[in-house]
């Protein structure tokens, strides 16, 4: 057994932590993009498409993230697409994120009163103009705090990607534990690192929430 100092543990975890950050950012950005498209479809109101989006959200909110990753990871090879753990994790987390963000944002859009839709309609605006100038600018202010809050869930969700063999913070923790036999220290450090990523996000979300609570515009 090689000698690991605490610094060795921390250093190796930090290296792997970069992948946690990268996976989080990618999934959040792509998930946000897909979520926005789904939101538009949902709001535009074609009954069949609305039902489809609702089913999508229901499916991803009603099943474990781990199962979603497994299905992507084991399912795609069956249709001839060989995917690395990185691709499977990115894809799985993107779908997961998009479903939650769509639902969060839908709530924000619906909180914009009917009067705003009617007033803009009475001024001759079409759906795109109503969305762009009236609804989204207002909905976005409401949506920012819960969206930042959800980013914490995405970061924590990346830990599940360790199970399909993607080497990020948690997986590195397991590997280092196997080499050092110091699970208390190693998992303690792993938890601390997640905390250092997530806590500032949580604080920021709470700060925004307080800031926007009483401000209508």
């Amino acid at each position, binding site marked *: 057994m090689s000698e690991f100092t605490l610094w060795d543990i921390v250093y190796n975890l930090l290296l792997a932590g970069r992948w946690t950050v990268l996976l989080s950012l990618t999934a959040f950005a792509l998930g946000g993009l897909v979520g926005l498209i789904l939101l538009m479809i949902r709001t535009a109101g074609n009954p069949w498409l609305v039902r489809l989006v609702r089913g999508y959200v229901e499916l991803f909110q009603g099943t474990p993230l781990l*199962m979603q990753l497994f299905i992507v990871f*084991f399912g795609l090879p*069956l249709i001839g697409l060989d995917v690395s753990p990185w691709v499977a994790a990115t894809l799985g987390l993107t779908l997961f994120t998009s479903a939650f963000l769509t639902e969060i944002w839908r709530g924000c859009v619906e909180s914009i009163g009917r009067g705003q839709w009617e007033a803009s309609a009475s001024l001759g605006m079409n759906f795109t103009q109503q969305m762009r100038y009236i609804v989204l600018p207002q909905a976005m202010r409401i949506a920012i705090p819960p969206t930042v809050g959800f980013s914490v869930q995405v970061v924590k969700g990346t830990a*599940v990607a360790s199970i399909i063999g993607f080497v990020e913070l948690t997986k590195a923790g397991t590997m280092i534990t196997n080499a050092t036999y110091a699970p208390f220290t190693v998992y303690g450090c792993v938890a601390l690192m*997640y905390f250092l990523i997530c806590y500032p996000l949580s604080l920021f979300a709470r700060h925004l929430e307080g800031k926007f609570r009483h401000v209508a515009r």
Partner: protein
Amino acid sequence: MAYEFDFGAIVPHWKLLFDGVILTTELTVIGAVVGVGFGIMGAWARASRAPVISQIVGIYVELIRNTPFLVQLFFIFFGLPALGVKLTEFQAAVLAMIVNLGVYSTEIIRAGIQAVPQGQIEAAQSLAMNRLQIFRYVVILPALKKIWPALSSQIVIVMLGSSVCSQIAAEELTFGANYIQAINFRAFEVYFIVTGIYLVMSILLRMSLKVLGNYLFERRRHV
């Protein structure tokens, strides 16, 4: 060469999945009941006028909320024995569930308490109730009623999150699935079916919580 799906390969192993469903349900029910109990106490502590207690609970809540469930699980199962606390797989999983639901419900219930109108509390004070009586008789029930939908969603989320308990070999539903695919190499089919089982479980859980909520909160209104 196309892959031939064989969902029938799961059938002989149905007992493993069935046992898994039972264990996942146990984890969720124990976690929810004990966790929400702790949540009520935690919310009480957070509203406490002793700032030290409130702060300690606050730090604990932030620590748990800002770390992944899987890492907490590893820490409890693999890490705690270093402190002489040796738990079985099931005990570790239950503990992790309770800790998580305790923390999330603390925050949710706290929000519900803050939403109880000040006039209610003042009315109770004017009737000479003490703090515990006010909490017990005037505050907690309307607060819980208000946040019941949010609390229900959180319980469903934690139930789904319990699928990673398979990683410490707690024999819940996902563990059953892993076990089957290791025998018959039908990973996709197994996980596909198990995903469906989870979906049904989450729908049933949400419905049960709704019924429970009606029972707890609506009935009293008409008494």
